């Protein structure tokens, strides 16, 4: 029992470490090799977890090996466009200049239903509004609307839009994030003053607080539970 628990802990920490080192990718946005490695690593770690007769090293060695190969492959594909094309494929233009490219649709095994479903996910219901739809190598669909259907930018409208900069979290569930406070050029005295100004006496009363580069503050007080 104890052995199983220790083995689970070791494999869990190793898996977390490997996936963390492989990069911050969301599930479903994995490239082919990342998906393969993820599946293999998950599978490899499950076997010695269930059978304590199999040495843990039988899982750890392949995990390290896969991690190293994935690392090497990512370096090689970064430097070679041709290799990248061979391994990951190339983006497919499913809609090109407003027309569905049926050859590409067949090549990517994409049905019109799947295409409209993907477009609906991006709040697009009319195919006439799409100029380009590109199936990326990670499986996501990038869509470019025809010029009349694109959102007008502030520049196009001739409106001035001052930048509010990056928003930094200052307090999270009553805890002051000192590093963030320093990064945005503020100190605890400013924080205390700001809280007093908004009618709060203690950071512990705050659930969430942010400040942007323009100095605009957002405060969500803690609710009574």
């Amino acid at each position: 029992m104890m052995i199983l628990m220790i083995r689970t802990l070791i494999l869990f920490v190793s898996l977390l470490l490997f996936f963390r080192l492989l990069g911050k990718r969301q599930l479903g946005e994995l490239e082919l090799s990342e998906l393969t490695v993820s599946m293999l690593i998950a599978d490899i770690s499950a076997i010695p977890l269930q059978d304590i007769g199999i040495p843990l090293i039988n899982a750890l060695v392949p995990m390290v090996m896969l991690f190293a190969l994935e690392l090497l492959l990512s370096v090689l594909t970064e430097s070679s466009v041709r290799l990248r094309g061979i391994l990951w494929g190339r983006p497919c233009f499913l809609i090109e200049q407003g027309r569905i490219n049926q050859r590409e649709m067949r090549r990517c095994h994409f049905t019109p239903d799947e295409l409209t479903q993907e477009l609906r996910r991006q709040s697009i219901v009319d195919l006439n509004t799409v100029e380009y739809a590109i199936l990326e190598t990670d499986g996501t669909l990038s869509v470019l609307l025809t010029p009349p259907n694109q959102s007008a930018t502030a520049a196009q409208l001739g409106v001035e839009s001052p930048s509010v900069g990056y928003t930094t979290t200052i307090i999270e569930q009553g805890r002051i994030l000192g590093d963030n406070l320093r990064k945005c050029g503020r100190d605890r005295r400013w924080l205390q003053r700001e809280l007093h100004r908004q009618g709060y006496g203690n950071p512990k009363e705050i659930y969430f607080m942010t400040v942007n580069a323009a100095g605009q503050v957002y405060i969500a007080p803690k609710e009574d539970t």
Partner: protein
Amino acid sequence: MKRTLIALVLLLLLGALGIWNLRQVDALTNGLCGCIELSIRCMEEGDSAAAKAAVDSALTLWERQERYTHIFLRHSEVDSAADTLYELQEAVYAGDAAQALSAGNPALYHLRSLQSMEHPAWGSVF
């Protein structure tokens, strides 16, 4: 460059670990097989004291490598190999040469199989 270096270092370390493991398993199984063969030979020649000493040294060698065997080898294989060694010891201590031979051969077979399992070959890879 840093990532390439990390990947290469990891692969090199794994390679080195693999080679070390092969040497370790070779040294262990060759040592054990030598002791077992000596023990059987001594039993056949009627020298039971030397046979006992040889089988005891095989078991000492096996027990001394317990940590290595349990980390690197399948536990079921390790247990079977240990069983055959203890059976041989029992036969040698009983002073029965025929029984020692019939217990020694499976022990030798088991250890040789342990060794070949760790060596990369068409059969072991596929």
